[in-house]
């Protein structure tokens, strides 16, 4: 793809290197400074999302020096991006202590604002909130909502409880109120094994299993009636692979016709609910090799409003600047690169 085609596009999934303990210290109070230092709360990389491993860094993007400068050089400038949304896939989701996780989330958000958003006006970010501590999560949302550069709330595809559960509803209420989509990002906090048969032997197996997490989170949000309760709420599935979703739409709509009386607050076919409320970032794209079948796979969604452009920088999904699969029509590309993103993230404004 050329810079001309991507000029003004919005990249919905970009990863700064995760902050370490030392990076967060300036944003912690005396107590938490002490805890983080003495108890060595330092590297918060998820086992399920191991950024130090080979697939998570494209070789020609590796380098020393200022990570923001590298991001500008590798991605923001060559693609001519209007905005990029920073997602820190943080180990904060995996901590057990409800207060420590809150402190880490807050400090990470402060670090993002200070070290990233303040330094490049194109940048936007997802905020971290502690799902382990719903009250504190709501407080953080309220605290942060005034900064419009935070455009989303981030959580994981594999969590402690299915995301539709009532216990999380105060988070969704606050999110809907402030126009913040819930970003569900690939990964797990390993509170539950990623599969019915436990933990996988290999990282590649873990990766392959991610759609199982995404599909069951979407199903939970629908079945529990989260979209009935919060009709303004949107959900963005980040790094899910895209082409798995129609199978869920078909299957859940089919089952709903017979099981409707169990969940009568689900008033429309799940496929229709998904089209209204669920979006997906474009990378990685699990697609066939040929353009005709890619188009067919996207046709199955029965909507051109669902896919949002992303690079998943700096992870290794494409060569050069070939950020989108081959063979998309100009109209589809335009929607993916810009229109769908703006329609999803109202806080991008302008």
């Amino acid at each position, binding site marked *: 793809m050329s810079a001309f085609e991507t000029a003004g596009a919005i990249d919905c999934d970009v990863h700064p290197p995760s902050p370490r303990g030392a990076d967060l210290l300036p944003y912690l109070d005396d107590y938490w400074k002490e805890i983080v230092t003495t108890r060595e709360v330092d590297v918060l990389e998820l086992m399920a999302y191991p950024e130090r491993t080979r697939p998570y860094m494209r070789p020609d993007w590796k380098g020393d020096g200022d990570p923001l400068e590298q991001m500008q050089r590798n991605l923001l400038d060559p693609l001519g991006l209007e905005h990029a949304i920073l997602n820190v896939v943080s180990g904060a989701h995996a901590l057990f202590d409800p207060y420590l996780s809150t402190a880490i989330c807050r400090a990470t958000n402060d670090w993002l604002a200070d070290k990233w958003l303040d330094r490049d006006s194109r940048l936007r970010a997802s905020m971290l909130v502690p799902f382990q501590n719903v009250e504190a999560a709501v407080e953080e949302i309220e605290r942060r909502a005034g900064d419009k550069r935070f455009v989303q709330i981030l959580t994981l595809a594999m969590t402690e409880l299915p995301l539709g559960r009532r216990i999380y509803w105060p988070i969704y209420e606050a999110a809907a109120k402030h126009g913040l989509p819930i970003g569900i990002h690939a990964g797990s906090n390993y509170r539950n094994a990623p*599969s*019915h*048969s436990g933990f996988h032997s290999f*990282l590649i197996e873990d990766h392959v299993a991610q759609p*199982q997490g995404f599909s*069951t989170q979407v199903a939970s949000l629908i079945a529990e009636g989260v979209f009935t309760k919060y009709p303004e709420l949107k959900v963005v599935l980040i790094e899910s*692979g895209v082409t798995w979703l129609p*199978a869920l739409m078909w299957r859940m709509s089919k089952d709903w016709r*017979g099981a409707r009386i169990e969940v009568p607050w689900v008033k429309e076919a799940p496929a229709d609910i998904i089209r209204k409320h669920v979006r997906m970032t474009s990378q990685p794209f699990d697609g066939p090799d040929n353009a005709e079948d890619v188009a067919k796979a996207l046709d199955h969604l029965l909507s051109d409003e669902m896919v949002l452009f992303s690079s998943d920088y700096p992870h290794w999904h494409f060569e050069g600047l070939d950020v989108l699969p081959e063979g998309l029509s100009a109209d589809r590309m335009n929607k993916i690169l810009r229109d769908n993103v703006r329609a999803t993230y109202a806080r991008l404004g302008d």
Partner: protein
Amino acid sequence: METPVLERPQESAQTLGVVDCDIHPAFSRPDQLLDYLPERWKAHMRDYAVRTANPLLGTLPYPRLTPGNGMRRDSWPPNGGPPASDLAFLQEQLLDEHNIDFGILQPLAAGSMAFNQELGAALCAALNDWQIDKWAGPEPRLRASICIPQEDVKASLAEIDRCVADGRFVQIAFPPRTLEPCGRSRYWPIYEAAEHYGLPIGLHTSAFGYRPNTPSGWTSFYLEEHFAASNSLQTVLSSMILEGVFEQFPKLKVVLVEGGFSWLPSLVWRLDREWKRMRSEVPHVKRPPSEYVRENFWYTTQPIEEPEVNRHLLDILRWIGPDRLMFSTDYPHWDFDDPRFAFKVPLTPTERSAIFRDTAIELFGLK
């Protein structure tokens, strides 16, 4: 956006009979299986019952939407007993009515998931004897599955050896929600035996298992649980391929039962994409995963996928290959598929005969 209209069901002329790859026979009374147990286990069952990961004895934790734990309302035999417990009524309502030449039994009883592994082995043996005695013996159209207690590999091998000489057993069966991902080498002796005897392994989605039904814990509702069962089949496929099972046992045949199939093309694209970048993590996987999928896996059709635009099903069929799908009814469950009406897309005669008959006949060696 097109508003699809549900098409009128098209009656299809079946001159040759159908093969039904998923029938669930039932006990005519709750203690019927005890008749096939040695005294030691009869007494155990009376005194201690069978213990599994199902948290409730009796009511299902996700109660079904129809009586009998999810049966067709019209499947209660007129002579009494639960659905699919009466051979005569099953012959009439299923085999004769739907022109079924061969039906493959999947008993779905608790033997394979019993916590008490010795008991589990005994129950599996009893189940296998019951299948022949009450079903595949008296009814020549029926075929049986060798149920094995897969966590106890030694007992599984013994049971396979015990049953394999009886040609009415056409596959080995165990549930996909195994204690470890089933590609692990611990289970390989079972695959060795299956390959050696030329018996496919049929893994049927199961209602309960050792671990939560999603990677985020347990669902609240049956609506969520029902489709999530097919995730366990995805795990079977990925695990077996990525652990190198088919490098070791290239002729092993695996049938994924009652998990649907519309998820398959995307999963295969994902496997191939990940393998291209990460094959150095799994050097024993010498070929692109899609090649093993094309050679070693088959899928039963029920519950038939129902895209919003019917003809999208044709895309799925062509991506999977119509020679990998085998028709099944899941009789007597509520989400039964009628062979006349299940497919709402036009199939070519070759596709139709492959799906409804030929592929299964060849795979299971049905005569």
